């Protein structure tokens, strides 16, 4: 013996499945439309917000750093434990490598120990020595690309 399903039970279940499908499509469509209109905060904005609010650092002027100023993702400067640092956010690994090469080409080999490339982000430290682990970690904590 097999169980028979009342006919109008299926009618209501079918309609309910259609309603659920409409809700799912509306949510997905709404999300895609929202995503195409609203872009999240940029890596530069996130970095700046993190440095200010979480690390309590002040944002400084880039001065005459024309190389950092060309980074497609923007650039900012700050000071960690007394050591100034310029942060250039590139749009890709290759752009980050190009920015680093340009620093090396312009300032010479002595800048290498002050230069750090982390993903798409290029850090150039001010003090004539490599940054301390703590200084580097502070910047990595606010690393966005």
């Amino acid at each position, binding site marked *: 013996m097999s*169980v028979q399903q009342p006919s109008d*039970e299926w009618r209501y279940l079918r309609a309910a499945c259609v309603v*659920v499908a409409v809700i799912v499509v509306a949510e997905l469509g709404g*999300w895609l439309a929202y995503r195409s209109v609203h872009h999240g905060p940029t890596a530069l904005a996130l970095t700046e917000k993190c440095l200010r609010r979480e690390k309590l650092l002040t944002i400084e002027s880039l001065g005459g750093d024309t190389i950092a100023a060309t980074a497609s993702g923007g650039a900012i400067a700050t000071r960690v434990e007394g050591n100034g640092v310029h942060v250039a956010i590139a749009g890709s690994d290759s752009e980050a490598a190009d920015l680093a090469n340009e620093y090396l080409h312009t300032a010479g080999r002595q800048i290498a120990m002050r230069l750090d490339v982390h993903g798409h982000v290029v850090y150039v430290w001010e003090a004539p020595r490599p940054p301390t682990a703590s200084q580097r970690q502070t910047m990595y904590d606010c690393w966005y690309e």
Partner: protein
Amino acid sequence: MRPAVLRRDMGRPVTYGVIAAVGVIAVRNALVYPAIAGYDAQEALDYARGLMDGHLPTGTGSYYTPPGFFAVGGVGLELGDWLGLDHPERVGQVVNALAAVTTLVLLLVLLRLLWPGREILHLAAVVFFAISPVVFKSAAMFHPEPLSMLLSTAAIVLAARLLVRPDHRLLVAAALGLALGLAQLVRAWTLWTLAVVIAVLCVAALTRPRERRRLLGAIGVALAVAVLVPFPWYAHQVTRYHSALFGQPHPEEPVWSRRPLGFFVGAGLPDVVTHPYRPKFSHQFAPLAYDEAWGDYFGVWRWGVTKPTPTGSVSNQLVAMSVVGIPLTLLAVAGWIGLLGLAVRHPGRTTERQLVALLPLAALAGALYFATSYPTADGDTVKGSFMLTAVPAWAACFGFAFDGLRLHYRRMAPVFFVCLAALAVVSVPFLFAVSRL
């Protein structure tokens, strides 16, 4: 015909097997899970200890929560101390595990009353309940929710019994009132069970002229007992805190403007699947409730509330559970909408099924109202366990939809069974509690 007979014959033993497995896992979890890691654990333990010393919390901790579970848990603590257990709270946790298993048994009783003979519907609903992480999480904790789920489900079963079988109506009505009253003495959420039960009984009284007088008598008895049993508690709260339910401060602005529109309509995509843990989408109701129910949004089960994010392997488990929950939730929602449609268009036909159609609606409305009234930045007022009393009804809705699809697309039935089994197999590892968080 032969395969159908076979399936029907197999449905019942498999259902019993699933219930037994739930019992074993739930009790094992209660003996392993660190009670202090659960929701509001210290408050709950302090409340239970305080009750055993003869006093209620005074304006601190969970003072607004009725003492039902804490009285049981307090006796459990005393028993644990007497037995010399290192963790006397384990007794209360085991009580919760047993409450969850008993709820599952009551769910089966309810399904047999509402859909007699539909063994596959029963099995699908039992499987849904059995692989719901929110049930296992709560059942392992020292927390009132599992006991309130048990009493709420008992009330729903008694209300269904009242409508399906005409004998001993006044006795059943008194038992129903007692279950509803005791449920309120455990958790205020069960007030929505009271509302649903009374509403459905009134619909039956309106649509069944021959039974109207007897039904109205039963409603009167049930309501009177349900009000009398928790009355001393409500009187105490009103006298002391000027609020019978939840006398906590809340924003001055009107309820409807305490949350932005995104809180109600946001789906948390894609993080609801790719990053199903805090602090993602903490300002959106649906994804938070979803991931709390199907996974471990707050970190009380797998990865720890003090950790900023879960590790890679735990994150993968959470993502897997979030994916598993999608077809189960969509089918449960479809079944729920179908039952609601039937209830609205044919209120006098199988009125008892409206009990499972209306309970999720009332639970959702209640949880939304609470989360809107008391907004928090971390989403703490949107815990999945707040809707635990509605899980048996969601399971019934799922079973209804699953069986409906199976009966309509008979050739696809094996595919449906394989999919359900696969989802269950993927879920099972997540249902086991870990001993350290």
